């Protein structure tokens, strides 16, 4: 009873925190350090009617959309950068099977700041005349109480659960950021402070003594963390700086597979539905391929 709680768990337990219809936020940014192992598990467990809330999305959203997990996405961008358009996203939107609510890229992060501040909205001065505003009844215009100029209340992100992939954490839930980092890494912190339930997947589990040696890197202290799952390569095929590079070859395979619904279903069957877990998926990707994208 008087032992400090350990928060390490298996992926299967972590994913049970997600119920159909929830609003979720995923750490990372576009194609960088995305919690892809968890994304896969949402598909494997056939979660439904989720809303994905974020700033700019790529494979994470496209894969969930192609597998029918999402009913709605709130974002500024769904695309695959140098790999082109996100084909599942495009197909489902053009068929009327998915709802997208647009929020501009950095304003989308302001929505998480609102939650962090305990507020219901974030005020912005950016939206006059834009169809992002005209087509979204949840954004409310008001006059600045000081100057009287027009402002808009953008609703907080209000996610039920946040999921991030970190490069290191300890068994109590202290989460560290890489010494060298930028937006895709700090977005993990943005998500963490905007939710009450935080699932962390981590490349490596380190001793708390090691955490204590570099406490300035612990951007998420243990009290914020709900559970930690140890998942090496957990952002594959997106990179985790200091551990892995982007797997261009695998993403190209993904892009080819997503050309039609049929070929994408075959892809899902092979890599997700017919594998029992992320490790079996990694075996299909192949040890040589994983070695080739190792960093450091």
């Amino acid at each position, binding site marked *: 009873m008087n032992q400090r709680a350990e928060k390490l768990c298996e992926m299967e337990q972590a994913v049970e925190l997600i119920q159909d219809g929830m609003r979720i936020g995923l750490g990372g940014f576009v194609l960088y350090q995305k919690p892809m192992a968890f994304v896969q598990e949402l598909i494997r467990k056939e979660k439904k009617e989720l809303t994905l809330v974020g700033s700019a999305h790529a494979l994470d959203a496209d894969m969930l959309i192609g597998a029918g997990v999402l009913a709605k996405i709130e974002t500024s961008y769904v695309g695959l950068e140098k790999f082109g358009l996100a084909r599942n996203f495009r197909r489902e939107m053009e068929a009327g099977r998915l709802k997208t609510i647009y929020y501009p890229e950095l304003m989308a992060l302001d929505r998480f700041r609102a939650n962090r501040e305990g507020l219901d909205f974030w005020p912005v001065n950016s939206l006059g005349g834009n169809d992002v505003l005209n087509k979204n009844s949840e954004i409310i215009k008001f006059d600045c109480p000081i100057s009287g100029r027009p402002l808009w209340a953008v609703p907080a992100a209000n996610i039920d659960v946040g999921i991030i992939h970190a490069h290191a954490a300890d068994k109590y839930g202290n989460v560290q950021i890489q010494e060298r980092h930028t937006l895709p890494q*700090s977005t993990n912190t943005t998500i963490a402070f905007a939710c009450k339930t935080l699932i962390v997947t981590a490349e490596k589990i380190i001793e708390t003594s090691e955490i204590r040696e570099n406490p300035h890197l612990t951007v998420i202290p243990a009290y914020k963390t709900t559970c930690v799952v140890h998942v090496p390569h957990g952002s594959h095929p997106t990179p985790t700086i200091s551990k892995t590079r982007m797997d261009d070859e695998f993403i190209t395979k993904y892009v080819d597979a997503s050309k039609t619904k049929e070929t994408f279903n075959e892809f899902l069957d092979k890599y997700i539905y017919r594998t029992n877990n992320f490790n079996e998926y990694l075996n299909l990707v192949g040890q040589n391929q994983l070695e080739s994208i190792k960093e450091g």
Partner: protein
Amino acid sequence: MKCSIEELLIVDLAHTIKDGELGFTGLATGSAATIYISSIPLAAMELAKRTHAPNLTILLCGWLFNPDWSKLERLPESEYDNQMMELSCESQMIEYPCNWSHKAGDISFGFGSGVQVDKEGNINSTCIGEIDLPKVQLVGPIFLPEHMAHFGREYIMMPQHERRNFVEKVDHISGVGFPGGREGRKKLGLSGGGPAYIYTPKCIFSFKEDGTIYVKSIHPGISKEDVIRSTGFDIGDLEDVPLTKVPTSEELRILREEVDPKGILLNSAK
């Protein structure tokens, strides 16, 4: 000295940049639009820096200040590519809110693009058709709403100049131009200047004081009829429109020998 259309645009654009400004550009690779969205803006800023604007600050991808391209052999492929992490620069953004503040007016100018632009200077990168059941789904508004609201001015870079791109009214206003002219922008509470120029392979558009669009110059070798035919809204008879000014041989020398000696910028999409 003979020059390419890209060089013509780079030098013209460089002339519009003032000393002491802060210019923002993204990095789009792997598409035909790369030259217009990334290479021309970067080359123009580097040229301005080496001529009349030594105090220009270049903000690349929103996270690297004053990058030094000279050690690179190729353009990085992605905005947060590991290679970008190693690109020599003076400051890196490590989180949001960051080391620049668009909403408070820090950005003097930026570059945007879309599949449609209209006569009010609105641009669309979101969808063709209805938002809930689009005929063609595109990537979304990304950062354009913020560009067009807050930056001092926006350069709209259009790699294609055809009637389907230059339309009477865009299907989705992802970035706001001049609805109701400059007065209209004020009423909408938009703090930035909005679109200032549109660069295309055929001509350069600009906007009058009241926000009306006009053709500022036509590139040598392109006919007035071609520009009129390729533009889906009325731009007049173009009788008095001058030719886009050809760069001097010194400007071309700096561009070719100092700005981009390895062809990293200008050969990236070839």
